């Protein structure tokens, strides 16, 4: 049967002009279990990630791990310098003067965590100078809330189109990936 033959991956797009319309539509799409490729919005919509079934981001874990690496390396380095490599009494403080090491340990912790999270975010999202991400609609950054559904069979594409139109999406069309 023709419907079962795999075709090239195709996408169906349609946009809404209000975040509430979008959220209602995504609920319907999830109920019908249509595969969502992506949703594009001009600003973050709280709760959309849960409704659309996105997994939680692991950026905080990354920040924690690198923060820990930062604090251990800063504290360890200062300890090594002042107790092993070149012990020197300065200002009458002991070689291993823990309180004096705290500020730098703290700063390095934050620096490592922040750098790791920012680069983690950029790499994971494929963002960076000269990144060539496809812009599906130039008004996404203005006031269009665009939904992209994917489908590999024409029935799926048809039902995707139907759902989008039924929920009030505008400019519903099939685009080649």
């Amino acid at each position, binding site marked *: 049967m023709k419907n079962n033959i795999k075709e090239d991956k195709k996408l169906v797009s349609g946009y809404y002009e209000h975040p509430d319309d979008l959220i209602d539509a995504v609920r319907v799409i999830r109920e019908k279990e249509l595969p969502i490729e992506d949703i594009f919005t001009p600003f973050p919509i709280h709760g959309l990630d849960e409704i659309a079934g996105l997994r939680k981001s692991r950026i905080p874990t990354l920040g924690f791990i690198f923060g820990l690496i930062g604090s251990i390396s800063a504290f360890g380095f200062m300890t090594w310098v002042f107790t092993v490599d070149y012990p020197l009494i300065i200002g009458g403080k002991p070689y291993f003067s823990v309180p004096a090491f705290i*500020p730098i340990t703290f700063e390095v912790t934050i620096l490592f965590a922040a750098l790791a999270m*920012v680069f983690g975010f950029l790499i994971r999202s494929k963002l960076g100078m000269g990144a060539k991400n496809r812009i599906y609609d130039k008004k996404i950054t*203005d006031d269009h809330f665009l939904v992209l559904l994917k489908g590999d069979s024409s029935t799926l594409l048809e039902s995707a189109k139907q759902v989008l139109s039924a929920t009030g999406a505008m400019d519903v069309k099939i685009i080649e990936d």
Partner: protein
Amino acid sequence: MYVSPVRETLITGNKTYKDVTNDISNPVEGKPGKFWYLGITISVIALFFGLFATIITIWYGIGTWGLNKTIGWGFSITTFVWWIGIGHAGTFISAILLLFRQRWRTSINRAAEAMTIFAVLCASVFPLIHMGRILLFFFMFPYPNTRHLWVNFNSPLLWDVFAITTYFIVSLLFWYMGLLPDLGSLRDRAKTRMRKISYRLLSFGWTGSMKHWQRHEILSLMLAGLAAPLVLSVHSIVSFDFATSVIPGWHTTIFPPYFVAGAIFSGFAMVQTLMIITRKALHLENYITLGHISSMNKIIILTGSIVGVAYLTELFMAWYSGVEYEHYAFINRATGPYWFAYWIMMTCNVVSPQLFWFKKIRRNPMITFVISIFINIGMWFERFVIIVTSLHRDYLPSSWSIYKPTIIEIGLFIGTLGLFFTGYFLFIKFFPVIAIAEVKSIIIVDRSKKQVKNADSEK
């Protein structure tokens, strides 16, 4: 959606999402007005004056300054602390107010963060040139060297190096990550080839995908969580430069909280100065409303009062401690040769913000602007009082001395003002001065699109 009957409208003028994009992008896309050209010309002249003073300083050494053996820190460290303090308001607005879910921050956080970056840049000039031999600046960093000696990790001056470097990097990352979506807006609106290419590069290929937004949101929250203690640590560490010494007037435990409150106080004054000009010049009265000005003034009263209490506590402690040096240091501040600096500080920092208790004054942009300038001046004199007045008469009367800044030092100060305002003027020309995406997330546009309401009001 919940609509508060108590809070006033954050964004006035019944804006739709499209209006927000247009209103904030227009100043970036259009030709700048006369005001902008005038402003940047003056700033660049000041910047060149500062550049000249820097070259003289580096060429001839810091003997060109008015410092002497008794007073080793003068104008430059005063101005350094002043700039670092100003920077703090930007991080306070974007990080601490984000954690406290203060929605009014969205209209001012972008510009305030930009201000932070330029202020920290200005601040970092002073320790660098004050070293005398600027080419050896890398001695500050712990690197393996032929002398086998490391930097002194016990010294607050080295903590400063780490704190300010971290602060600058984290502020820059925070600011730029927040800018990505708005640079995407500018890219998608770009008409000319030059703008298309530059904003495509600058926006890092932002698409507005929900996956990007999800990570972006959590990243902002996490960076805010890190930046909040960071900003408190930076000025605490700056205050350690003084507090860990034995100079009367410096050697007090009150310094860290007192410096942090002072920093936020002076920073908000600078934000007011900039915002009141910006909203007028770029016609953003609907975004930066009287409500925003009033909210910032409330923070100014709070932090200004903390600073006032700190001044009085210092006086009390000087008397109560029974230490005659400490005692004399404070009598000398109020009645000695630098009495004028002390009384300028007292009037500008303690008296002038108290006017904001009156609602009429708090909501008046003109008066707020004038008071914000007074606070800027007052906070500069606070650092002058702490540094010069404490140093010029120490334990040994035979080494007492007087400090007068030379034209070179004044030039450096004016030069950093030039650097700061040049940076700010370029920023308002090429970047969206208000966070477009964040403002869109706090307005509620009615589904029928005919009537627009605001998240926090029913007005």
